[in-house]
């Protein structure tokens, strides 16, 4: 459910916040968060060989998150330019469960593969991977998406304007948009924004209460396990060794907090699964934030270069004076 914030309140809040940052809270809090002792991220392990595709996790996800689903106001405001701003409305298709939608944050993907000369069918629960360094969070221009220290990333429905940048930069195109809901309605709905982006938030509210995500709890086959990164990675590698299997998610996009273990190579699974809108691939993914990270390191040299150039000039001019 999204709470309403008036345009005046939003602008007032923004100006007040902007005014106070340099002097007080912003930098102080940033410094505090830098120095705070780090919590080891929680990682989920999915043993694909156990999944029977019963969709209990899908229904549990829908039930647990029903109060977070959008309730768009209709008719939608006219958005300009009309040819460039697609209306994305899933409010009449809430029962779609064969792909990701704003009302379905987890779905089952089907794959066939040959194992030991025998054809087997595999089912794979798919949702947000909760990347180590999530581009959706880091590149959101408004800070609407956030990452928590336990490794989950989520989108704040009260702040998201539905620009869909998070989806564009996500290597798996996970977030899905619902038009006609959220803060943009109270700002300039005709010219900026287009709803709210939705995706799995790994049941952050359940985790806060010490409960496990609904999909994990509901699974009758114990497909998923959640735990600290080091522990889960150890388990994943042991499991892969045991089944002579393969791992996905450990290194994708520089590392994620979702680890799949499969008896079949993921290249094979990727060829078999249906891919497309709301149906993510299983390709290898390079670290999308790596170039930025390398340039950030180079940024440390920038002031040194400036100082060197200034002293170089000083040295040359003093030599000329002599």
């Amino acid at each position, binding site marked *: 459910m999204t709470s309403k914030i008036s345009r005046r309140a939003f602008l007032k809040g*923004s*100006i007040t*916040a*902007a005014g*106070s*940052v*340099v002097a007080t*809270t*912003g*930098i102080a*809090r*940033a410094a*505090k*968060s*830098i120095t705070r002792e*780090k919590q080891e991220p929680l990682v989920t392990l999915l043993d694909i060989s156990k999944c029977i595709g019963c969709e209990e996790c899908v229904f549990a996800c829908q039930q647990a998150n029903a109060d977070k689903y959008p309730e768009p106001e209709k008719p939608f405001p006219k958005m300009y*330019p009309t040819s*460039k*701003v697609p209306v994305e409305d899933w409010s009449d298709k809430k029962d779609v469960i064969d792909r990701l939608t704003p009302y379905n944050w987890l779905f089952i993907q089907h794959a066939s593969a040959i194992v030991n000369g025998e054809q087997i069918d595999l089912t794979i629960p798919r949702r947000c991977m909760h990347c*180590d*360094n999530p581009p959706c969070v*880091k*590149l959101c*221009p*408004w*800070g609407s998406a*956030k*990452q*928590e*220290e336990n490794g989950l990333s989520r989108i*704040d429905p009260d*702040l998201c304007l539905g*620009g*869909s*940048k998070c989806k*564009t*930069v996500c290597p798996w195109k996970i977030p899905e948009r619902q038009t006609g809901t959220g803060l943009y309605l109270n700002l300039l709905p005709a010219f*900026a924004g287009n709803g709210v982006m939705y995706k799995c938030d790994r049941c952050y509210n359940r985790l806060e209460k010490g409960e496990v995500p609904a999909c994990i709890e509901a699974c009758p086959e114990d497909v998923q396990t959640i735990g600290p990164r080091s522990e889960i990675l150890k388990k994943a590698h042991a499991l892969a060794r045991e089944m002579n299997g393969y791992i996905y998610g450990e290194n994708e996009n*520089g*590392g994620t907090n979702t680890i799949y273990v499969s008896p079949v190579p993921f290249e094979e699974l990727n060829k078999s699964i249906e891919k497309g809108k709301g149906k993510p691939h299983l390709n290898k993914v390079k670290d*999308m*934030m790596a*170039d*930025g*990270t390398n*340039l*950030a390191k180079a*940024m440390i*040299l*920038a*002031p040194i*270069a*400036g*100082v060197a*150039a*200034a*002293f170089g*000039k*000083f040295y040359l*001019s003093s030599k000329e004076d002599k």
Partner: protein
Amino acid sequence: MKTTGKTRKYIYTITLFFITLSGFAQMPIFKRYYIADIPGFGWLAQFYVTHIMHYIAAIVLIALVTYILIDFMFNRSRLIKITRTGYLGILVLAGLIVTGVLMVFKNLSNIYFGHTTIIVLDLTHLSLCMMLLFVSFYSVIRKKSWVI
């Protein structure tokens, strides 16, 4: 000496142009408003390209600002005086660099800033950018120099 000043001005103007353009491109507006459809401007809708461009321009800007600062302290502080417009511009520029560097740090892996901190940083950076543009245009239009 004159050539150095001109070069410095050109580097600053080009950097400011690209850093502002790539900064605005962080918002999903260029595709919506047909700018990215103009031949040769398609890259403005590619967020990873503009992100990298913003970082490169920031590296040049930080190096240039450090150079000017050290040069002023050691070579020119007795020769020139900073005007009131200049102080305002410098203050805004300093704010942009501080918030920008914090945001670069935030974008590194395993760095968690509080949600409010991120929102405040984003909005402050954007507001300071608008202020810098205002001060820069005011300086050009009213022929107000930052130093005399």
